[in-house]
């Protein structure tokens, strides 16, 4: 299996490592770069637990090869906090409405929501549901997640 040098800008920091051609981006982030905040749920692109933002768009890191991401800017859940280590308004809103239980789908949910709010600062409930429609959660029934994203949007608009 051929090996390749892969360099990414992850959460603003340049990071690189070696990847077999078949290594997925999520395995590269977790196993090579040690960023375990991004999770693996299905490895066939349905559950969304592995969502990261690649060059501004949310992608399934389980369906993306690391070599294809070479040179890309990646945002993972570890990159959502402010520079001061404070939670972002979105993360804070997830805590405020208890938009999670086990926390396993949460990084992917946050990424999907982060991408939504970057494009649409005032989403309707239906738009929020649509934006997280590709992210499965088994604990919450989604209601408190929708509430959190609406709350974060409100806070961000007010800020």
């Amino acid at each position: 299996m051929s090996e390749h040098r892969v360099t990414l800008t992850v959460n603003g920091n340049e990071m690189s490592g070696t990847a077999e051609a078949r290594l997925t981006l999520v395995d590269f982030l977790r196993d090579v770069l040690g960023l375990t905040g991004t999770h693996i749920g299905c490895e066939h692109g349905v559950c969304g637990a592995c969502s990261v933002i690649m060059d501004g768009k949310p992608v399934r890191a389980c369906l993306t090869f690391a070599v294809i991401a070479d040179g890309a800017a990646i945002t993972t859940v570890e990159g959502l906090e402010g520079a001061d280590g404070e939670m972002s308004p979105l993360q804070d809103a997830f805590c405020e409405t208890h938009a999670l239980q086990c926390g396993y789908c949460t990084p992917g949910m946050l990424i999907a929501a982060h991408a939504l709010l970057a494009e649409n600062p005032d989403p309707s409930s239906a738009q929020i549901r649509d934006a997280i429609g590709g992210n499965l959660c088994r604990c919450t029934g989604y209601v408190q997640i929708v509430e959190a994203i609406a709350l974060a949007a409100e806070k961000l608009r007010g800020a």
Partner: protein
Amino acid sequence: MAGTDFRFVGRKRRVREDRRFVTGRGRFAADLSLPGTLHIAMVSSPYACAEIKGIDVRAALALPGVRAVLTGDELSGHINPLLSGLDLPAVKRLPLAHGRARYAGEWVCAVVAETRAVAEDAAELVAVDYAPLDYVIDPEKALRPDAPLVHPEHGSNVFFNRKWVWGDVEGDFAKAANTLAFRVRWSRCSTVPIETFAVTASWDPGREVLDVWASIQMPKFPEQIARALRLPVNGINVHFDVDVGGSYGLKRGIRQTVIVAYLSRTLRTPVRFIEDRLENMSGGEIHGPDRIFDMAVAFDDDGVMSSLRIKATDDCGCYPGRAPLQLGKPVSAIVGPYRIGSAEYEATSVSTNKTSQEAVRGFGQAPTNFAIEATVDKVARAVGLSRAEVRRRNLIRADEFPWRIPSGSEYDSGDYHAVLDKVMASAGWESMVSRRDALRAEGRLAGIGLSTCLEPSGGNSSFEPLFNLKNDTTTWMESCLIKIDMLGGVTAMIGTSSSGQGHETLVATVIGEELQRDPDTIRAIHSDSLSALPSNSPVGSRMAIMLGGAAGGAARRIKQRVLEIAAHNFQLPIDRLIYDGGDVHVDGDAGRVLTWAQLVDIAHRKYHDMPLGAEPGLQASFTWEVPTGGALPAADGTVQMYPCYAFEAHVPLIAIDPETGQVEILAYHIGHDCGTVINPDIVRGMTLGGIAHGIGAALYEKFDYDENGQHLSGSFMDYLLPTSNEIPDVTMVKHYTPSPLTPLGQKGAGESGYLGAPAAIAGAVNDALRPLGLEITTLPMRVRDIEALLASHRASGGKF
């Protein structure tokens, strides 16, 4: 509400666990990376049943990076069979198939390599010589005398069969003005966490300890590992601080753990196994109840029910484990919330060539509630009353508690009529009916569902002796240890892992309430199993009751010791003292005070100021027996099974597209009473999540097998989980009837929502189909099932 007298209990407070998860700092089993860790991939049987004639591992072992291939032959020679919930000595459950593979997807070999990718490559190189054998997939066919036997050594496909008759069922049926009988079916589905099972084991030959990090939720996990591996329990250390990525009953990976533990001991290096989704769904033994209900009910012309017959035939799959016991929990609420005076229950657990069932949220209660609610709906139709009115006439009344049901359990408390009234007011029942009828007038199929269901909670073990006479377990205790450090900090130890229930928040809140200290300053940690006090893990909707009860008990002991120290120093009796937020002052003289810091300092450093003979330091533990527990079942099977009974009433409004069969949930209301609520956001989240599970079970989720015994639902493209587009907003109205059996009045909520949603959704779909004269009696009511039914109706000239 019950709770207004509390400082912290019942108040809106953030869930302390959330912060680590939203910042990507959860520590899940797959996040652990020990140097030298080897990885496993499984070789699975492609046959529903086959003799394993030989396994050629040479090509696999020759692949660079491969370290070992473990076969069932090797493993079975070094371990004991895994624990069964039933007394079935001839049925041996082993982590890897030995001699015979009994379902498609069963694990035959574990390939160990330096990376998971290489292990997967090598798994494809393992050549297994199979001789296919006869198999049986349909549980009713499995009961026929000529059926192929899943376990020939056992001599039958019946794992368990028993019929209980409580009260004069025959007489009540004979006397009744009306009876009806029918069949409904709950299909094989599960709660399917997004995290698969993951485990790392590391044998330390220096300490002679096996360290285990696993995404586990299972009672007596260390003991089960020890028994299988023939190790002392104090040679196993399960790290309960691993965050578990959802479980809902399922995460019981004893097979997986025994495999990695054996390999780590053999290979002298850490070994981990993280199931991929196919391994999880086809071979991970995560399927839930799969049940046929033959129901019969006796009732009068006023719709009042007098007797119920339930025959439940459950397709357990291949191995018994704890799954057949899921027929047992419903004994605790066999007549639901209704004043039904006699009951008959025949429970049969059948073995087929499918992957084994595991415990799923509600432990068999959700299917049973679905069958009972279908019965009540049919009674309503038979006597021409509304479904709400028939329920009102049959529900146990608030002034009748404690209420003993025919199977022996006593319900602790409730106000079912009040909750039903609240949810109907919330739904605006009359206007909802108008809306339904308006939708029908527009040509859509529309229906309203109603279910009123119980959540037996407190997680007792009484179904074990009921289903296995050799098992005389009568305690299912839970513990908490609190230590106050030298500077007054409070740390509480939990003896089990958590999978999203917020146990740290629960414990900190309860202790904060008792000690009158800010819960945010109280740390709650998960002990590892070597230092943990006895626990039976978060099963059976028990932790608010049992862990909350244990934490509160330990805190009361701390408070008592603080008062004793103060009394000694004031030279006054305790009843002259006031405990106030940790400080203690003399009653009527707030100036004579010893502060928390001073009292803690005395306990830790100033033995000369301690009462004579007192234990130095400030720590206390409390281990609690399940309230009302402790007794074996009587000869007729009657037993007090669970202590506390929460109640929920669901009202959904749905519409069905007459062309496609697509169900849309237009409104959803639930009335919920779990006694005193400790954290409102947690209870709400549990309930809403349970409703989502219930909607999945009612409309989408099924593990399908074809006639060849092939599992067809190994991916999320075949096994459909509801997304945010399928699950509606839910309006929840609360009612608070405290339990008299718990210190704060709390009941369980961990299974809430799930126990009533499938029944309510099924009722709504059938309400929508009723104008066409159609009915569906099998869950899930999938789009394709509804579409096919409507197409057939249309083809036969049926009206819309």
